[in-house]
């Protein structure tokens, strides 16, 4: 049976969006144990973590589809539907990039050179920090909707986004240092491996880039 009063309400995207960033973050977080295993050349464990990363990426994808299906054009929302869909898209990229980079490492059984491995793992960690901060910011969505995107809650979210930006800037610095360190030793590597190492650094850095874009999208919502 349908009912007018019940049917005025579309499915709220807020809790699903918060759930989605949670999954995307958990996916990114798996990159650390994966890389730790890969640096050691422990490929059995790396494969196990890679499987977990894939599962989480699929889960994020399913959530993304479900949210989209529940956001028909007939919905009237406090913020433009398009902005929410774009937020969802960049959230999803965090999981996608994690999957890409782990796939590339595993596919080539690529060993990170011992000389830069510590620095590399720190870089990975910082990218995961960015994803974590993105999650913390998106988790405030329900409060933002509760306040109609004005007032004290907005300042709180703005501070969270500023911190997210600082973390992202930090990853940029670390990425440049890492590339410089790799350049120093690249002659000792197989040329193809060296090329892919640069590629992996770049892809990993995109996790923080996507997290930062989550912040930009949130900011857009605040400006309405």
């Amino acid at each position: 049976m349908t009912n007018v009063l019940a049917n005025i309400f579309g499915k709220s995207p807020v809790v699903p969006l918060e759930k989605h960033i949670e999954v995307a973050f958990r996916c990114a977080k798996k990159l650390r144990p994966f890389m730790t295993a890969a640096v050691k050349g422990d490929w059995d464990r790396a494969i196990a973590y890679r499987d977990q990363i894939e599962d989480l990426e699929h889960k994020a994808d399913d959530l993304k589809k479900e949210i989209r299906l529940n956001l028909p054009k007939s919905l009237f929302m406090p913020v433009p539907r398009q902005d929410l869909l774009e937020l969802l898209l960049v959230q999803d990229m965090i999981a996608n990039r994690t999957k890409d980079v782990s796939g590339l490492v595993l596919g080539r059984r690529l060993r990170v050179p011992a000389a830069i491995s510590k620095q590399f793992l720190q870089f990975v960690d910082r990218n995961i920090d960015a994803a974590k901060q993105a999650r913390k910011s998106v988790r405030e969505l329900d409060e933002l909707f509760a306040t109609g995107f004005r007032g004290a809650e907005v300042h709180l979210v703005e501070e969270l986004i500023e911190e997210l930006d600082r973390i992202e800037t930090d990853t940029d610095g670390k990425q440049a240092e890492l590339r410089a360190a790799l350049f120093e030793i690249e002659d000792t590597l197989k040329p193809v491996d060296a090329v892919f190492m640069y590629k992996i650094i770049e892809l990993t850095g995109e996790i923080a880039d996507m997290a930062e874009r989550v912040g930009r999208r949130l900011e857009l919502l605040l400006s309405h």
Partner: protein
Amino acid sequence: MEAATIYIVLAALFGVFMAWGIGANDVANAMATSVGSKALTIKQAILVAAVFEFLGAVLAGGEVTSTIRKGIVDIELLAATPELLVYGMLAALLAAGTWLFIASHKGWPVSTTHSIVGAIVGFAAVGIGVDAVQWGKVGLIVMSWVVSPLTAGFIAYLIYQSVLKLILRRDDPLAHAKRYVPIYIFFAAFAITLVTILKGLKHVGFDISLRDSYLLATAIAVVIALIGAVAIQRIKSDPKAEKSQHFYTVERVFGVLMIVTACSMAFAHGSNDVANAIGPLAAVISVAQNGIVTAEAALPLWVLMLGGAGIVIGLATFGIRVISTVGKKITQLTPSRGFAAELAAATTIVIASGTGIPVSTTHTLVGAVLGVGLARGIEAIDLRVVARIFVSWVVTIPAGAFLAIVFFFIFKTILP
């Protein structure tokens, strides 16, 4: 059996059928808001509905009942043929009841009020003559069907804006909620009490001056607000369920307010919609007992009781299920939003009741919810429903009218 007895028995049966339908659908909608926001359990909602529907019907339902009974059909024209009014009102009750039964099975958003008004206009215009309809009054009623959701939406918008500005957007929303919510409770209680005193107590035999009415309403509202304030002070925040802004506890504070607005909503509904069932019943009884059409007949108390009982039975049988389905789907209506919608709808409906205009509770509530949405209060509103409501208007009035005409001619043939 005497013809008069047959009329009364039939009218009572149809009236209870109609009241049952109102209880199963309309009341359920009115109460689902409070259940959905978890301010009340289903059992509490039924208790509140039973008590306040009755109070609303008895204390403030007289004006609308009289509109349904004698405001739509020009009963002066029927002085010579009172039995036509009996057939017509019986037909209208059965038509509206049947239409509601079909519609709620199909899930169409039809309004009880629209069905009964359409049915009465139908039998009068076709069965008696186009002149038998008081078109001016009917036009006013139809206009109110547009105006009441708009008014409720506007009031809800203002109330929710004030909630945002005074409480939710502040630095410490919890402290502000504890300070301002008792004031909202005062206004909710004041509005309903005042209308009851101004419009209702006269029917029960009290006559209070205007100044005393305001004083009394203020006094009662202050007492209710104080009780609410005490309940609110006892709410402690639960650190596990919270983030920094304490919105979880803020909503619990609004939950107290919502108990008051739920009572208002049930009262408002009782004051307006019970008349849909007992208005025609009252018309039949006055003709059957007196043998003549009279505009002055008093409404027997047992008729009101019958209407109230039918509603409570409808609520207890089918309404429970409607409340729980609707309640689950409207979780976006948190207490801070739900109260704004309920208070706006209840106030609008009670004012309409006071002026004797039958409006649709559900549609008024929908208007109020849209008002909260316009104040950016609701995450996602599906606008397709608004279109469906318009379609239901266009369909319900002719459908009610058509069924009433058919039943009218059947009754005219078979009844003594």
